[in-house]
């Protein structure tokens, strides 16, 4: 390149060009905004779709029947549309799962954040992350073909499908979510607070329980809420291991269907678009979404109330 052409190419562009450049920038910004806004559109689409099909469903079935009928047999001749059996199945399996995941997840989080030597933490954290990445259908297989036979040795009367074994496996599956978020929250507590506690003569355990945990409450609450959402919305483990028979029971030793398992069961068959059977899965889905939404709102309130700012 000669000196002359170099000088030419370095000359400031004219105003017209900068207008074009400006236009391009604006255009790109608009495109990026649309991409970001798509997430809101997805939410709106989810709500619109569920409400639309559920509305059609509630033209056939009164909301009162839906909420109080104790049978859920939409595909039988004698059709009943009571969501209670599905809700009970969902709540029982989730409760079993949370009874496993919340204590174990919390203990692991405290241990990793406050007690574990550096090397253990460096190995355990990625390992737990890998555990959280195993496909849920694999956990379903494990629940049905390993955990259920194992439990049957302890409780011989346990049937081949049960909420108990699905819940237990689901709990183990959720541990990584609970532990990793809680641990992040605890590690975010400033070191000076621990130092203050140690200086007063507290032991590690006392510091962890009375200083670090209260300071990290809001983050730990968020972890629990995520765990609850996972448990309530988990599908494949319960579809495989808990059976698909709607059953109004609070006994984890029985087989029962959850909301999610019902949706899977209907989807496996070939229901015509627009039939009442097709609409039931949207009504069930709406119930599920409202349940997770309730937990999320409770979590949000808890987080706000216990938030500590340093």
């Amino acid at each position, binding site marked *: 390149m000669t000196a002359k052409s170099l000088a030419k190419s370095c000359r400031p562009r004219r105003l017209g060009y900068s207008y074009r450049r400006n236009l391009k920038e604006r255009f790109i910004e608009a495109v990026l905004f649309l991409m970001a806004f798509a997430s809101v559109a997805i939410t709106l689409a989810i709500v619109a779709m569920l409400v639309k099909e559920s509305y059609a469903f509630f033209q056939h079935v009164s909301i009162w029947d839906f909420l109080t009928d104790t049978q859920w047999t939409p595909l039988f001749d004698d059709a009943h549309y009571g969501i209670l059996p599905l809700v009970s199945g969902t709540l029982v399996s989730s409760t079993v799962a949370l009874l496993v995941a919340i204590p174990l997840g919390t203990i692991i989080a405290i241990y990793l954040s406050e007690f574990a030597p550096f090397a253990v933490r460096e190995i355990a954290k990625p*390992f737990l992350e890998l555990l959280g*990445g195993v496909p849920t259908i*694999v956990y379903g297989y494990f629940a*049905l073909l390993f955990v259920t036979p194992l439990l049957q040795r302890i409780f011989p009367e346990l049937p081949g499908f049960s909420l108990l074994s699905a819940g237990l496996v689901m709990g*183990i599956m959720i541990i990584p979510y609970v532990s990793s978020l809680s641990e992040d929250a605890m590690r975010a507590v400033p070191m000076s607070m621990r130092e203050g506690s140690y200086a007063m003569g507290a032991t590690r355990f006392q510091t962890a329980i009375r200083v670090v945990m209260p300071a990290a409450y809001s983050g730990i609450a968020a972890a629990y809420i995520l765990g609850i959402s996972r448990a309530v919305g988990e599908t*494949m483990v319960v579809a495989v291991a808990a059976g698909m028979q709607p059953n109004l029971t609070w006994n984890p030793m029985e087989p029962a269907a959850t909301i999610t398992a019902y949706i899977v069961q209907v989807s496996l068959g070939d229901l015509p678009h627009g039939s009442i059977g097709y609409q039931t899965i949207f009504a069930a889905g709406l119930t599920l979404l409202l349940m*997770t939404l309730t937990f999320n709102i409770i979590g949000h309130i808890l987080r706000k109330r216990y938030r500590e700012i340093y």
Partner: protein
Amino acid sequence: MSKSDRLTEIRAIIVRHKRWDLMFMAVGMFALMISVLTFTVLFAQMIIDGMPRLSWDFFTSFPSRRPGSAGILSAWVGTSLVMLVTIATAVPMGIGAGVYLEEYAPKNLVTEIIEVNVTNLAGVPSIIYGLLALGLFVYQLGFGQSVLSAGLALALLILPVVIVTTREAIRAIPVAIREGCYALGATKWQTVSDHLIPYAAAGILTGIIIGLARAIGETAPIITIGAMTFIAFLPPSLVQAEFPFLSFEWLTSPFTVMPIQMFNWVSRPEEAFQLNAAAAGLVLVVMTLTMNGLAIYLRYHMRKKIKW
């Protein structure tokens, strides 16, 4: 009470409390071991049951009524095609949204709504995405029970993951880099496309891999769309002999994917099929573990290497 009495009392308290420390250490190790042990047993069980079924034929045969000759050909081809659609949708949208929220978004109500919404979307059960896809893609937009519908459903599902990791990766880049760019007269988009995205690439890639690993294992939304569980043919080829050489017919083809094939085999009563399920599960676990492992390695490597 004499001074030495009090001293022994204090010492006893200290010893007692230290014992609590030790006890908790043991409990913590035990809890961690439960997780590790479960995983080991799960993996071992799959290897014991599934390994004998794993052979070249298993990957090159269609599912069959006879468990001994059934394979996962249509399943892994279906999974690959669905992933293509997912990548093509979720990656540009996720990166675009992440860049917008981190670099462009003004502090106003709309931005706040988008941010809260992304967080909430991550908590929506995956089967709900399936219902959305069933109503919207399959029927409303008429894509049918196809590879396209499934790919889009999974793309929506992993979008929050890609957005969040993109944001984190971009946030980690020091302001000085941006200031340097602007000082040289670069526009915002030039700064973003020439500097921020390349520097954040490793971080973004980590997010994409984690998202895809999740998408590969997702079963529920795909069942809801109506993926068939028994498919003994392959979708039309991606390439063709005539111009323009690329065919998009496969987008509308019926399909099955790995986790669905596994689900189908698990739910059969014959034990021979459950061995097939174990083999398919083993392939699936190895795939997701490799991807997640790669993501973890990338992140670890990045943390060590990048010093701004």
